[in-house]
């Protein structure tokens, strides 16, 4: 063991004090302390947004947000998981939507309550300009709203902090859907793949998978090809 890896820090998980190695992420530190994740953990690679976490540091009034699988623990961190953010999510048929500001306001009228306080932006672990995503939607600028929200993981931290009770990640998602449907339009590679699926190109492979037993499936999953 190197000198560094022996260094311990104190964290508080839901108020309970733990000494954990300093070189762990919040997620690993919580597991080290004996927690088992049933919710609030997903890809462990910073892509799925399942492990939204809020924390405060001792001596600071700032309430901060992070992804537990990405953020390293720090001394005197008070941590709580937000594995799920309750949000009204609308059902709509993308073909029936008009790609303009009125659609955002019809689906999510609360966006008109945006105070431009920028709290959502401060909460974002992806460093997105969250407020600008909502503001662009308000004026029907679908392209800007879609592009600014491209890296959104829907972790929900913006939604739980918004004083106007807006769910910004749903706004970005609606923008991206309309952008892809009405601004970009159909793309050749997607149409080609849909055609292949319909023609049954992958049926045989899927049937094979379906017939496997659990241990074999598990082994296959563990040894799958992964992008670096």
């Amino acid at each position, binding site marked *: 063991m190197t000198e560094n890896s022996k260094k311990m820090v104190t964290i508080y998980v839901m108020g309970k004090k733990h000494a954990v190695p300093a070189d762990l992420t919040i997620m690993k530190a919580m597991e080290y302390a004996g927690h088992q994740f049933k919710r609030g953990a997903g890809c462990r690679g910073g892509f799925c947004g399942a492990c939204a976490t809020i924390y405060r540091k001792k001596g600071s009034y700032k309430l901060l947000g992070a992804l537990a699988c990405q953020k390293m623990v720090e001394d005197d961190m008070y941590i709580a998981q937000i594995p799920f953010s309750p949000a009204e999510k609308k059902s709509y048929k993308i073909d029936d939507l008009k790609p303009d500001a009125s659609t955002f306001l019809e689906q999510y009228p609360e966006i008109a309550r945006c105070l431009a306080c920028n709290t959502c932006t401060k909460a974002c672990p992806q460093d997105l300009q969250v407020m600008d995503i909502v503001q662009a939607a308000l004026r*029907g600028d679908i392209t800007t709203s879609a592009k600014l929200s491209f890296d959104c993981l829907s972790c929900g931290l913006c939604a739980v902090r918004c004083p106007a009770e807006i769910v910004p990640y749903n706004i970005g998602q609606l923008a991206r859907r309309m952008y892809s449907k009405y601004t970009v339009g159909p793309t050749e590679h997607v149409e080609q793949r849909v055609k292949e699926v319909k023609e049954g190109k992958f049926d045989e492979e899927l049937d094979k998978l379906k017939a496997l037993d659990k241990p074999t499936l598990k082994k296959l999953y563990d040894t799958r090809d992964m992008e670096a």
Partner: protein
Amino acid sequence: MLMMNVAYYPGCTLKTTAKEFDISTKASAKALGINLVELPRWNCCGTVHALAKDDVMHHLAPLRNLLRVEEAQQSGIVDDKKVVALCAMCYNTLKRSNQAYNADSDMAGKVRESMNNEAIVYSGQVEVEHLLETLRTQGWDKVQAHVTKPLKGLKVAPYYGCLLLRPRGVGVDNADNPRIFEDLLKAIGAEVVDFGYKQKCCGSYNTVHMVDVVADLSNRILKQAQEAGAEMVVTACPLCEYNLGNRQTEVVKKHPKFNGIPIVYFTQLMALAFGLGEDETALGLNKPDPRPLLREKGLI
């Protein structure tokens, strides 16, 4: 022609239901040598000025926009710490918040503490200007010099509404006896029709839930303008334009004797007088359609 690069704050209405205001503004300003640079980042103006002294949060939206102007000036895309607004509501809100920020250091301190994630601190030095003021400062003779198609014989009544003129110290002109629209209309060759209700309320946001009230008010205003001889009404406020224009469908229902009259933005008439085409006057977007009258007058 040497172009001035001026920060432009369009506001949401000019990007949605008042596109004709946005299009004709940029085109007519350009013809005058003013390059209106839309702020790269902007948010809602705040819509209504926060009147309560302790209502700091509602100042964040307008003041954040002014901070963006300062950023734009620092990055060199605009010449001065100045922003031009068009929508009367945006203009009024931005300017009043700016005044409050400069007048009340306690409030300013709270705003600074609550701005969240901004790279700079707003200095309070941005000047909020309405395009009408920009034009007046440049001189009406300069506007006149660019006219290639004077709006001869077109009888236009200027309608100010409330937010362009009030309160004093914020309004673009004398609240009781304004002349800025009149001066502009004269410069572009139109015939000015004065009428008593040019500052009367259009019903404002009652248009959302009390259309009835707006129908009565619009009827009163427009009828008086017509009795004074107006063939067209000009405005600078998208909400006035909506209530006096789009709402004429409701006016006729309630007041069957009412005859329609076109409502346009002042920038559309400027663009027309500067000889710009319909792509830039955007006269096809107003309701009711002003083009039959303008054709009759031989102006398009």
